[in-house]
């Protein structure tokens, strides 16, 4: 917490998620080592680092998606608004409703555009058709996709372009009104124009959501994020506000990575 308050002195932010002493194992392999980190509310936090550094694993620990991997084990405490999401009384399903996720490869369901966005509401037990239609529209607008699809909501989501599919996945995520959105390299499979749209979207979403994004692209991290955390070999090497991280990193490793000397 200390670092963040220092980093964001001009505009103090509250903390949305805190992780303390987090270790993640795949079988006997330790993928994340003792990570203490705070994620600021209503901001974009970028996780950067070379392939295999554990940033995606760490991300997936934040909404208990690692639970679905058989050999995966998470230790330590991960707090969402002060409550441990790995607590014994906590339902992972509830955690994932509050902490949504957008994946690297867009993964729309083979259903209509409308049904894709409505899915989260339907599984939540929402029956009110008008409300669903309204939320679908609002979510598609929120993901900057509405104008492109409003005339073909009933056609298959698989007919959309790659960039549109990814924004549909974001819309689908928004529809359940999450508090935090985790994004695992959401633009890595997209062309520059589609990437630019996603980045623009991120800047808008920041107003209402807490966003944690894993990215391979340092330029992207620099463009969209407020805070940056650098992971290396499963450890959190350094973190701070993005401007400082990219101009005056305090650790040598960070500087080497950011200046492109390895990674």
């Amino acid at each position, binding site marked *: 917490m200390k670092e963040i308050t220092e980093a964001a002195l001009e505009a103090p932010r509250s903390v949305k998620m805190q992780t303390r002493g987090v270790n993640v194992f795949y079988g006997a392999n330790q993928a994340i080592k003792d990570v203490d980190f705070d994620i600021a509310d209503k901001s974009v936090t970028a996780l950067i680092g070379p392939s295999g550094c554990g940033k995606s694993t760490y991300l997936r620990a934040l*909404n208990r*998606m690692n639970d*679905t991997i*058989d050999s995966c084990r998470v230790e330590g405490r991960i707090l969402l608004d002060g409550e441990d999401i790995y607590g014994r009384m906590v339902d992972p*399903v*509830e955690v*994932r*409703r509050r902490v*949504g*996720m957008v*994946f690297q*490869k867009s*993964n*729309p*369901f*083979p259903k209509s555009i409308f049904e894709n966005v409505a*899915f*989260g509401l*339907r*599984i*939540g037990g929402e029956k009110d058709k008008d409300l669903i239609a309204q939320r679908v529209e609002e979510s598609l607008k929120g993901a900057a996709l509405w104008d492109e699809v409003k005339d073909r909501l009933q056609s*298959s989501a*698989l*007919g959309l372009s790659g960039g549109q599919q990814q924004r549909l*996945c974001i819309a*689908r*995520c928004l529809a*359940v009104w999450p508090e935090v959105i985790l994004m695992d390299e959401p633009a890595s499979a997209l062309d520059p124009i589609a990437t630019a749209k996603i980045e623009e979207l991120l800047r808008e979403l920041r107003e209402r959501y807490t966003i944690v994004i894993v990215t391979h692209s340092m330029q992207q991290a620099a463009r969209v994020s407020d805070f940056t955390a650098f992971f290396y070999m499963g450890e959190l090497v350094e973190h701070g506000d993005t401007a400082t991280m990219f101009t005056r990193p305090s650790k040598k490793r960070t500087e080497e990575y950011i200046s492109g000397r390895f990674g």
Partner: protein
Amino acid sequence: MRYTGKDWLLAGLTGAALLVILLLLFVLLGQIAWHGAPVISAEFLTEKPGADMTSGGIWPAIYGTVFMTLLMTLAGVPVGIATAIFLTEYASPRSRIARAVRMAVNNLAGVPSIVFGLFGLGFFIIFVGGSLDAILYDDPRPVWGKPSILWASLTLAVLTLPVVIVTTEEALRQVPRELRDASLALGATRFQTVYMIVLPNAKGGILTGVILAVSRGAGEVAPIIFCGAANFLPYLPTDLRDMFMHLGYHVYALATQSPNVDAARPMLFGTVLVLLVLTFSLNLLAVIIRARSRAALRP
């Protein structure tokens, strides 16, 4: 691309093998169609067989086959699909139970069908049926503990079970992990994910597997010899405890049990043709469903 000497040799050998297969298929089917088609008539399809087995029709055998196949499907398919869902969606891949079940399924698939017949006789008829009789009736005459369409269908259900399980598992595994992840990440429970995402996307594959299993079961004769198929039974089964005629078994009966085998031959070919048409149409249905479900996954 140019063929070298070895290519010619391999192409020649594989081509010859292909030719042998095609020829066999052609001779087999051609002969059946050639001899069987003239026998097919409205009367043949709707009449009872004559007492000498050289005249009349095969309606009771068609009816018995369809009835048995339906019972078998109702009894076996839900269990098979449920087992496959458990294995792929719920059991951890390294769990002992899952491994034991998988091993059992694989072994079950390799068991000769006559053994299933003996199993049906020993387990369903003597043990289950016999116990029911002992509990329910004082009468020494068996009510449940004798061959019947129920026990034959259950025996075949056990026979088709491995096929249903393996093909359903295969179909479930074809559903990309990304879709499961997407669903779970939206706060769906595992049940909702299976029910709303996995099963609808695996539907085509499951259906294909089920139909192939059913078509195999419909044509099996060995398991039902002991379990309920009748040589000659000119009335339709009305009760689960009745015996029944079966197309496959009727072929066997006509070929070996008929008082005059030569005179029964046209009936034999006709019966074989009907049996083939039934199983082929099931297979064709499976092919169509598979093609459709593949098309549905594309935009």
